[in-house]
Structures are given as structure tokens and as C-alpha cells.
């Protein structure tokens, strides 16, 4: 009964989501006002908002609109961007209060004639829409995000072969390696908002990505790495990270699954045994 109800609600929501997209086809707006957060504290410029009107079409993304404003209205707007196709993770910012990728948010998806753009919170501010990612990258570095395996570096003249992985093995971690390091999750997480040493959803989900990869042989070390006062336990499954992630990484899921191993809900012995088996075969 409840299962059915849940399913019904689910289909209803999906339908509504689809209808939202259909609205784009008859897009009526022809211009929109950008309300842009401006500040350059280092140079003594205090925070304020600039309102700039830009022309838009059905396809215009918030990034397009901002770059138009930069080219023709105010060239001093500080903004970070690169790929314009949602694969590099440069252009994260708060759009109408929610962390999003500017190049992945079409003006037509947003309600109203004014769009507020602000820098991501939880990242130190540099200028205008640009924030400092060095802490964020350092957290990623600290979870040792690389395959730990004695055979990881192949000798030049070795037998050329891969570690066997079935498509199912790949599916266990593939989703988490979709992460483009855009930092949206980091900006949305309530723990990161106060805890400066919490690795954050991005880094923790990467810890799981390598933990569950059948090529990695250091599961125990990985668990120890996140099991500390400001580690994985500071995630309270607020889910905001997964709600804003533009790539479906679902960091919340990765974190909880990793914690399942710490709590003893899930076991990884099979993987370890498998690895040993495989090594024996190789020798």
C-alpha cells in the first residue's frame, strides 16, 4: 500500500518536472535584469549589488547573460568560467540563492525578471562572483584520492594487461567519479557552513569512490582516514549536497555507504578476498 502511494507521488513529481521543461519552448522573455553581487574587499570595495539588464533568448544561460554583461555593459565583472558545457566545474555560483552552475542554468528555467547572482558561500571570497577553492582542493587531496595498490605503477616492460572489472564492478563507483569539483555541494552543506575542518561532501564521496573500487587495496586505511573528530561523522545526512549536485554524483549516498562500513552494516571482505585471489593468479 505505502509502496504504491510512494510510487504515485513519485510519478506525479516527475510529471510536474517534465511540464516545467515544456514551458521553455514558448519562451516569452526578451530581457532580464541581473542583480550581481560585487565586492573586492582587498581593494577596499565593499559589497553591493549592481543591476544590469541584458537581452536573452530561449537558449541563453545565466553564464551567457553574465558574459554579455561583461563584454558590453561592465567589463570589470569578476567571473570564472571555462567549458560552458557543465563539464569543468568553474562557474558555480548562487543563482537566486541556490548554488548552481551558471552555464547549466537557463534563464528560461528561472522565475521572474530579475536574477540574483552571488558567489558561492562557504568558500573564501576573492572578488565579485569568484571564490577561493584552495581549501576545497586540499580536502580532496587529504582523502588520498588515488588507487593504492602495489601494482598501480606499471613497469615499462611489464606484461600489458588490465585489472579485470566487470561492468557491475564499474557501476559501484562510476557515479561518484562523475564529480566535476564544482563545489556546489560544499557550498550547500550545513556542516561545512560552520566546520572549517570537515572535508565536505565532495572529498568524502571521493573517499568512497576509491574505497569501493575493486582495484584499490587499502580499504582499512581509507576508513581510518575519515574516522576522526571532523571526519565523516560530521555529516548528518542533510542531503543538501545531493540536492544541488549538477552531475548526479549523489555525495550523500557515497558518504552514508562509506559510513555503513565503519558502522559494520556492510562488509568489504569479499573485495579483499577477491583481490588476494587475483594477485595469486597473476603471480
Amino acid at each position, binding site marked *: 500500500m*505505502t509502496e504504491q*502511494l*510512494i*510510487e504515485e*507521488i*513519485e510519478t506525479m513529481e516527475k510529471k510536474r*518536472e517534465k511540464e516545467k521543461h515544456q514551458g521553455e519552448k514558448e519562451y516569452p522573455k526578451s530581457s532580464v535584469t541581473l542583480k550581481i553581487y560585487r565586492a573586492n574587499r582587498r581593494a577596499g570595495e565593499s559589497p553591493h549589488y549592481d543591476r544590469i539588464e541584458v537581452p536573452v533568448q530561449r537558449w541563453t544561460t545565466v553564464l551567457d547573460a553574465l558574459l554579455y554583461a561583461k563584454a558590453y555593459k561592465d567589463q570589470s565583472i569578476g567571473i570564472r568560467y571555462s567549458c560552458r558545457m557543465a563539464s569543468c566545474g568553474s562557474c558555480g555560483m548562487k543563482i537566486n540563492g*541556490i548554488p548552481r552552475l551558471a552555464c547549466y542554468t537557463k534563464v528560461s528555467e528561472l522565475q521572474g525578471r530579475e536574477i540574483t547572482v552571488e558567489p558561492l*558561500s*562557504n*568558500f*573564501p*571570497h576573492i572578488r565579485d562572483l569568484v*571564490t*577561493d577553492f*584552495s*581549501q576545497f582542493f*586540499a*580536502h580532496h*587531496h*587529504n582523502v588520498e584520492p588515488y588507487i593504492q595498490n602495489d601494482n598501480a605503477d606499471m613497469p615499462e616492460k611489464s606484461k600489458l594487461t588490465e585489472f579485470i572489472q566487470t561492468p557491475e564492478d564499474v*557501476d*559501484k*563507483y*562510476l*557515479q*561518484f567519479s562523475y564529480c566535476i569539483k564544482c563545489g556546489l555541494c560544499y557550498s*550547500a552543506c*550545513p556542516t*561545512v*557552513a*560552520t566546520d*572549517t*575542518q570537515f572535508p565536505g561532501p565532495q572529498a568524502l564521496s571521493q573517499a568512497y569512490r576509491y574505497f569501493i573500487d575493486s582495484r584499490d587495496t587499502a580499504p582499512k586505511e581509507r576508513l581510518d582516514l575519515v574516522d*576522526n573528530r*571532523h571526519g565523516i561523522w560530521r555529516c*548528518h*545526512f*542533510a*542531503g*543538501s549536497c545531493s*540536492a*544541488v*549536485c*549538477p*552531475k*548526479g*554524483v*549523489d555525495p*550523500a*549516498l*557515497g558518504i*552514508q*555507504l*562509506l*559510513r*555503513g562500513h565503519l*558502522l559494520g*552494516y*556492510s562488509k568489504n571482505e569479499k573485495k579483499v578476498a577477491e583481490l588476494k585471489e587475483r594477485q595469486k593468479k597473476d603471480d
Partner: protein
Amino acid sequence: MLQLRGNTSMEREVADRNNREGMMGWLNPRRYGWERVSYWLQRLTGVGLLAYFIAHIYETSQIAGGPALWEAFLELTQTTLGHIILIVVIGMCVFHSANGIRLIFAHGGKGLGKPGRPDYPYDAVSLNYRQKSGIWIALILALVAMLYGASVLFGGE
């Protein structure tokens, strides 16, 4: 503890709380969906319950002072305001417990679904309707418990 690698300027920035949302980030819990509401309520009710619990221990300790003191203290707590507080506590307790049980499982990845191949439009499986309905059920249970509590406290007189 995590050690941040790098030059000193970065270490300085680690201490820098520049642009963190801070506790202001707890405001507006509807912004990111039901899971965020659950986070916020779990926290609020947790602290609320702890406060009540401390008060309750103090309250019961009055028994040691003999019948007169106990009666006097009862007079203080058995008021309308006292009853309302107690009803809120009942609600908090039921929500915190019911949601807490969900969280104990969810924190270990139970009931969240399996990772799979990402497929547009990337719906996060961990934010599935099983979890959301868990939060709703906890809220409904809390409401029912509060109504029952009210009927006992106010109806019994």
C-alpha cells in the same frame, strides 16, 4: 586530524571563516528539500530534549525535599504553560525518536538505494521517497502524539 598541505598562506585561509554561511545557514531550512528540514528539526529537537531532560531531573529532585516542596513545585509546573511545554516536548520526543531510527539506518546507507549509472535528469537516489516519507511519518506521529498528550493533560482535568 586532517592536515592541510601547502604554503602558509593556505593554512592561514583554513582558519579564515571568510564567507562561511555559519549558523545563518541553518535558517531557511526549506531551501534544499525535506532532508534539510529533517536535519534542522533533529538538531532543534535534540537540543530541546536535552534542555527538558536537565530541567526534568531538577524537577524530580524536588521529591527529596519532602511533600511540601514537591507540592509547591507541582503547582509551578502543572499550569497551562507547563502543559503546553510538555506537549511540545512530547512532539519533539516522538519526532526525534522516529526520525532518529530512520537516521540510524540511513547513516549506514540502509534504505538509500544503490549507486548506478548516472542518467539525466540526475535524480539523487539517496533523496528517494522512502526517505522523504520517513520524515513525513515522523512528523505525523509527532502530531498525533501531541494531540493525544493534549487530550490527557487538558482533558483529564
